[in-house]
Every structure is written in structure tokens, then in C-alpha cells.
């Protein structure tokens, strides 16, 4: 009931209560009275009634005023308060109930406002904690990502089933060693949710995992195993595997950490050292045997002139042959001859600058740098070389009172020279040679290495010399110059359009620990759990049967409901036929761009590998699938994965909308970058597909089977119209 009506009712009741008893008494008195008494009553009433009415009316007015006041303060006040509470609860948390009205109402309002304050404090704390937690997680994530990226070793973590949960850049770079084509931006070898069986022989993996299990069974706390395996591309990979599990004996292994290293070079070096050794020992045996035999023959008194001449010639010829072999071997195996200390290529200028800082902290000496060539490279063990320089400088300063040292870097074709120069005072090479045998150490730090160790490690030599004209003396360290510095090119990553807030690419997904692909048949698994390859193609035209060809494939992956943009695939393809000018207007791919690109015969198998074990998704998939399927027989591959079409799915959930990719992107609020590049379209399709999954679920479409059935319905519906 509205307050107005309730007020009217209250007034009516008040009126009735004030007049009712009086009227009732009057009626009863009137009914009981005789004719004479009635006349008296009438007289009295005529005389007193106006006064009575007046006082009653006054009382009534006072009553109404009181009632109105009560209403305004209690009934209407409480209703206002209730509305205020709604505002406070839903619309504006900062709103406070006005503390006015009678004491009781004010007390209530105050209590309400206190509760609101309390709520705000709790919420604020909660928000802060949520933010804090998110920040901590984000920080940890970034730290992990940075750490993983810094590791030179390739690291892959997989779950017990062999699905990849985490990997780093180094692992991606290693894909080449497994035979990933250099042209394709991403291959099907390493990716979240992918099986490591693509990389490593399943039998080998099973053997290693079983062996680790067995080791744990024997009570080993940190079992690990190492194997070397050959890749199809001919590289040798060393794989070190450790399990991820608690230390308790019974605890199940939830996954494995694999550290991979390409040891092809290492083993080749080893082999070439062996070859060298063999060449120098066994290879010379016959020749030296001849020489020795000839020498002994020449020694015999009864050898005739002819034979003497013959064996003389043998000696000359064989000694020449041995010398030549020696030369050839030392040329061919120069690298193998050097000590096998892990050396890194480094630039001389960098070392000299580092040495300057290192010496300044340790020695009381004025230092000057003289870098004659910035691009002198050599292989060095950075720190031991620094120690060697510091040792030499220390000797010069402490034993010879040198106050100003000049660090000079120069070089020629073959050698790099690091000189410690000073003016005046002379040394001898005997002293310098003596230093070589002393342990390096400076300012109390002791190193077990001697200068000679460091020199040998670097294949270096050291001597003392003078520049007479400038009256300078110097100790020179000579190192073999490195001619070509091979820097590994960064792996080609597709130009994935990203926005600022999306941050760095993610190379891990710990939710995959709990992932089991074999738990249920693919068809009955929820859409949210499947892995998808969302792809798009650009073609020379619209008629694959008439000879139109694919000129670009772009694809991206969805794993565990996440779009993995950094695991994208993008490749131009030489169609070996002219482009239709009309199609160039659509995709802007010109014939020049296709020159030198691989053919479909090379790219499609790579894409097939990329898409293995996933559900294919495309917008108007039938079109793209026709192009793929026409190539299947010729290339001996089959795209027999389940296929979902975002066009058909859109028709199912939004029957009254337009279903073009642009329209759907608008509807779902998906930002469009680079439309009409295959990867750009694939990314848009993928985001649309992800937004469709919850809408499909509202319509009861949860599993892959249901999605396929729904697509079919709309497909037939479209046919019918």
C-alpha cells in the first residue's frame, strides 16, 4: 500500500476514534430518552454543540498534525532510508544514509552507515589483497620468463604423459636441429600441449621415464638420466631428464624436466681430435718405419752403392712425406689442437674496458686505454683472462713501481695483442717467464691457476718487448684472432600483432599438469579443453578445382582456452602460376613477394605437423579445406582432424545477425589487425571462436560432438534457404 493511502486511512481512523464514541453515546442517550428528555437534549445540544464541535475539530487537527509528523519521520523516513540503502548497495558505494529525524531513526541510520563503512574497509582490503596477489603472481611469472629466456640450455617441462607444459626460447632455437624448416615461423615440434614424442622417439622417452621410475623405486631421491639421441636432421642431442615429484617415496611423478643440448659440434670436435691423433700416430707409422729401416740399412758395411742410394732416397722422401702430413694435420685440426676449455667468443674492446674497471678497483695505478681496433675478436675465458691481466699489472705496480699503465689493444690478421705498457723501466723475458709459473692472485685473492695455465687455455703466448723510439716497455699477451664471429640469428617469429596490455608471450601453462588427452574420446570432450589450430589461407582465386592455389597459410593455436599468439605459423607459398590481379587487390600479395618462397609441397607437410593432434578451426572452413584436401593425395598427407567452422557456429548462436568475419568481430568486440593476411584473419577467427564457446554452452553445446551437430543443423538450414 502506498504511503499516501496509508496516511489517509490513518486520518480516517483518527477521525472515527475522536468522533465515534461521542456520536455513539449521543445515539444511545437519544434512543433511551423520553419525549420530554429529548426536547431538553435538543435544547442543550443546540446550545453546546458548536462548542463541542469546535473542540473536537481542534483536537482532530492537532491529531492530524501529530500523525503527519509521525508519518513523515517514521514511515516515509524509513522508506527513504530503504531506497538509500539500495543506492549504497548497488549504484554508489560512497552514498550514506542521511542521519536525520527522530532519535530512533537517527540511531538506525547511524548503525547502517557504520555497517557500510565497515563493508568499504573490508572491500578495500580485499581489493588490495587481490591486486597484491596478482602483482606477486605477475612478478613471479616475469621472473620465471626472464630466467627461462636467459638460460642457454634448452629446457622443456612436460607432464607425465609427455605433453609440453613449459619451454624456453633456447628450446625453440633447438627446433632447427630437429629438422624444422628455417622458413616456417613456427613448426609443430615445440608448443604448449604438444607431445614431446614429436621431438624424441616415444620408445626412448618411455625407456627414460621408466628408468627414472625404477631409480626412484630403488630409493634415489633425485634421479636423473642422460641420453644422446640423433634427430632426423642428423643432429646429436643430449637430453637430461629429471622427474618432478615430491621427495616422498610413494609420491607420484607429475612431470619431467628435460634439458636439451645440441652436442653435434662437440662430438664432431671430439671425432676430429681422434682423427688428428690417429693421423699423427698410426698415419706416420709406415713412413717412420721406412726411415728407420733405411737408416739402419745405411749403417751396414756390406750394403752396395745402389742399395745405399736407394735407401738414402727413401729417407729423404719419407721425411718429406711426414713433414707434409704434419703440416696438413696442424692446419686441418687447428681448432681440435687447442685445449678444450670452454671459451666464448668475445670482443677485445669489451675485455679491455672490463679490465680497466677490474684493475681500478684493485690497484692504485693510473690507467689509460688505447683501443686501436674495436672489432678484434677472440675466444676467451673472460674471467681467467681478467685475472691474468690483473696479475701482470699487480707485478708491474708492486715489484717495479709502475705508476701509469696503458692498456693497449691491437691486432693483425692472425693475432690479437693485449699490451700492458709503461714508460721507462726495463724487464727481461726471464722474469716474464718466471711469472708464468706463479699462481695468479691479487690483493689476497688466491687462484690455483698459473699464468701459464691461462695462456695455454687460450692458445696464447706472452713476452716482453720495448718500443725504443717512444721509450715504452710492454708485456704483450698474444691471442689467436677469431676471423668470423658467427652469431646465431634470432629465430624467425611471425609478426604477431600484439597490444601493449598483452605483455610478453607465454611459454608455459601449468594447468596442463592435470591434463590427460586420453581420458575421454575427443568427440565427447568439452570444447574448453581441446587444442585447436585456427587457420586461414590466401589463394590465387576461388576455384581450387580449376587450378587456383594457396599462396599463404596463417595459423595460430588455442590450448586450454588460451590463444597462443607466439606459437603462430605464417608462410608465403610460391603457387607456380600467375596471380589473378583481382585477388592481389584483396590480399596485397604480389608476385615479387612469392619469388623464392617454398612450394606447397614443402609447406603443407610443415603445416600438417603444426596442426597435428588439434581440431582445425576456420571461418568458412569448407573453402580452405577444399584447397588442403585437393593436395592430400599428391603429398601423401591427410588432414583428417575434426573441423569446426566459425561461420556455421555463428549461424547457430546468432541466427538473426550477419556472419561475415568483420561483422562477427564487431559484434564480439574483437579488435582487427592486419585483415586479409592469413595470420591476421586466423587470429581474428581464433578470438571470435573463443568468445563463442560460452555462448554455445548457454545453448547446451558443450562437447565437440554437439558443436559438430549444431554446425550441421545450420549447414542444412542454410542449404534449405
Amino acid at each position: 500500500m502506498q504511503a499516501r493511502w496509508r496516511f489517509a486511512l490513518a486520518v480516517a481512523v483518527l477521525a472515527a476514534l475522536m468522533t465515534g464514541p461521542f456520536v455513539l453515546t449521543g445515539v444511545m442517550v437519544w434512543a433511551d430518552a423520553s419525549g420530554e428528555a429529548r426536547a431538553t437534549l435538543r435544547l442543550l445540544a443546540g446550545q453546546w454543540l458548536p462548542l463541542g464541535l469546535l473542540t473536537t475539530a481542534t483536537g482532530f487537527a492537532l491529531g492530524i498534525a501529530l500523525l503527519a509528523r509521525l508519518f513523515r519521520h517514521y514511515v516515509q523516513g524509513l522508506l527513504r532510508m530503504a531506497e538509500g540503502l539500495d543506492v549504497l548497495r548497488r549504484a554508489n558505494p560512497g552514498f550514506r544514509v542521511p542521519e536525520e529525524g527522530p532519535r530512533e531513526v537517527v540511531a538506525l541510520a547511524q548503525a547502517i552507515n557504520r555497517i557500510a563503512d565497515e563493508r568499504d574497509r573490508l572491500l578495500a582490503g580485499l581489493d588490495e589483497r587481490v591486486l597484491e596477489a596478482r602483482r606477486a603472481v605477475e612478478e613471479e611469472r616475469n621472473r620465471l620468463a626472464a630466467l627461462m629466456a636467459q638460460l642457454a640450455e634448452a629446457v622443456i617441462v612436460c607432464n607425465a604423459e609427455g605433453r609440453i607444459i613449459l619451454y624456453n626460447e633456447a628450446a625453440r632455437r633447438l627446433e632447427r636441429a630437429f629438422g624444422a624448416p628455417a622458413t616456417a615461423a613456427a613448426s609443430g615440434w615445440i608448443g604448449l600441449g604438444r607431445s614431446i614424442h614429436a621431438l624424441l622417439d616415444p620408445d626412448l622417452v618411455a625407456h627414460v621415464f621408466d628408468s627414472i621410475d625404477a631409480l626412484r623405486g630403488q630409493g634415489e631421491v633425485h634421479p636423473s638420466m642422460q641420453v644422446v639421441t640423433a634427430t632426423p636432421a642428423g643432429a646429436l642431442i643430449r637430453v637430461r631428464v629429471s622427474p618432478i615429484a615430491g621427495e616422498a617415496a610413494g609420491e607420484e611423478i607429475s612431470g619431467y624436466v628435460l634439458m636439451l643440448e645440441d652436442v653435434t659440434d662437440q662430438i664432431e670436435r671430439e671425432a676430429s681430435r681422434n682423427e688428428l691423433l690417429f693421423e699423427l700416430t698410426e698415419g706416420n707409422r709406415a713412413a717412420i718405419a721406412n726411415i728407420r729401416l733405411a737408416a739402419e740399412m745405411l749403417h751396414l758395411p756390406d750394403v752396395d752403392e745402389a742399395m745405399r742410394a736407394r735407401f738414402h732416397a727413401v729417407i729423404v722422401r719419407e721425411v718429406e712425406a711426414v713433414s707434409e702430413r704434419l703440416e696438413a694435420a696442424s692446419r686441418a685440426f687447428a681448432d681440435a689442437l687447442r685445449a678444450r676449455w670452454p671459451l666464448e667468443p668475445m670482443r677485445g674492446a669489451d675485455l679491455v674496458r672490463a679490465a680497466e674497471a677490474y684493475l681500478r678497483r684493485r690497484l692504485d695505478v693510473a690507467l689509460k686505454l688505447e683501443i686501436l681496433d674495436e672489432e678484434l675478436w677472440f675466444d676467451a675465458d673472460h674471467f681467467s683472462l681478467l685475472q691474468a691481466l690483473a696479475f701482470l699489472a699487480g707485478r708491474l705496480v708492486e715489484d717495479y713501481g709502475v705508476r701509469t699503465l696503458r692498456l693497449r689493444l691491437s691486432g693483425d690478421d692472425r693475432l690479437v695483442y693485449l699490451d700492458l705498457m709503461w714508460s721507462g723501466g726495463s724487464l727481461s723475458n726471464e722474469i716474464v717467464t718466471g711469472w708464468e709459473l706463479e699462481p695468479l692472485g691479487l690483493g689476497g685473492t688466491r687462484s690455483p691457476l698459473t699464468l701459464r695455465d691461462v695462456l695455454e687455455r687460450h692458445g696464447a703466448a706472452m713476452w716482453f718487448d720495448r718500443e725504443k723510439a717512444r721509450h715504452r716497455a710492454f708485456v704483450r699477451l698474444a691471442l689467436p684472432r677469431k676471423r668470423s664471429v658467427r652469431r646465431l640469428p634470432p629465430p624467425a617469429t611471425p609478426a604477431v600483432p600484439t597490444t601493449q596490455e598483452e605483455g610478453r608471450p607465454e611459454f608455459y601453462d601449468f594447468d596442463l599438469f592435470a591434463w590427460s588427452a586420453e581420458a575421454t574420446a575427443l568427440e565427447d570432450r568439452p570444447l574448453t579443453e581441446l587444442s585447436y589450430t585456427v587457420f586461414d589461407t590466401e589463394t590465387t582465386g576461388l576455384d581450387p578445382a580449376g587450378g587456383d592455389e594457396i599462396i599463404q597459410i596463417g595459423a595460430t593455436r588455442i590450448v586450454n582456452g588460451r590463444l597462443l599468439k607466439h606459437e603462430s605459423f605464417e608462410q608465403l607459398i610460391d603457387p607456380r602460376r600467375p596471380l589473378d590481379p583481382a585477388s592481389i587487390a584483396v590480399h596485397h600479395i604480389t608476385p615479387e613477394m612469392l619469388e623464392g618462397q617454398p612450394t606447397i609441397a614443402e609447406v603443407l607437410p610443415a603445416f600438417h605437423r603444426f596442426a597435428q593432434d588439434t581440431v582445425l578451426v576456420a571461418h568458412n572452413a569448407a573453402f580452405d579445406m577444399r584447397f588442403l584436401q585437393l593436395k592430400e593425395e599428391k603429398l601423401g598427407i591427410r588432414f583428417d582432424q575434426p573441423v569446426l567452422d566459425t561461420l556455421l557456429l555463428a549461424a547457430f548462436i546468432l541466427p538473426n545477425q550477419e556472419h561475415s568475419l568483420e561483422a562477427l568481430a564487431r559484434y564480439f568486440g574483437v579488435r582487427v589487425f592486419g585483415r586479409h593476411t592469413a595470420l591476421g584473419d586466423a587470429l581474428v577467427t581464433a578470438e571470435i571462436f573463443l568468445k563463442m564457446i560460452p555462448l554455445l554452452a548457454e545453448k547446451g553445446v558443450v562437447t565437440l560432438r554437439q558443436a559438430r551437430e549444431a554446425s550441421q543443423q545450420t549447414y542444412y538450414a542454410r542449404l534449405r534457404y
Partner: protein
Amino acid sequence: MAKKVLVVDSDENIVIALDFLLRRAGYEVAVARDGEEALALADSFAPDLILLEAALPRMDGFELCRRLRQDPRYGECKILFLTARGRDIDRAKGLALGADGYLTKPFSTKELLEHVERLLTAGAA
């Protein structure tokens, strides 16, 4: 009667020098330049000792040694490898195939002659 030594080596200088040295030491000497020639000569010449290089054309010394040791006619014949194959594994192989000694090149002529002498007198005793 002088003991007979068959020298098997493809290196002409070795063959000439050994021929000279062994004749000088009082042995009857025949020479073969490859494995098959050696097998034929072993039959006609009937040597008491064969000086054998492992690395030979056509049939290598190890194979020759194995065949000779399978033939009962050469049961008394000594086989001494004199070879440029110096690895332990080659020595083990030669001895396993039935050789009586294994000398590696380069060698001292004095030691070689002593070794030949020792093998031949041991065979006579």
C-alpha cells in the same frame, strides 16, 4: 739346411731391406707383395716363418693369418706380424688369429732379427 722365411709386404723398400737383412743372417728368403701371392708361395715355398704386414692389398694380413692357421699343412709355420697397424686392438686381433708374435713398425732391425731367430729356434726345439 737354412730356415725359410717368407716376407709379405707391399712396400718395396721394406721387402728389399728385409730380403737383404734376412739373407745376410743366413736364411732362405722368398717375398710376396700381397695376400694372394703369399698364399700361393706358402704352398710352394713351404716357409718356416712368415713375416706379415697386416695392411695388404687384395687380402689383408689378418685374413691371410686366419687362413694359414686353418690349414694343417702350416701347423709348424711361425707367423710374425710386422705391421704399421699399431693399435692394441690390432695386436690383440693378430694374436687371436694365431700369430706367434706381433711387432709394430717402426722397428729396429736388430730386434727383428732376434725375434725371428728366437721363434725359429723355439720351433726347432
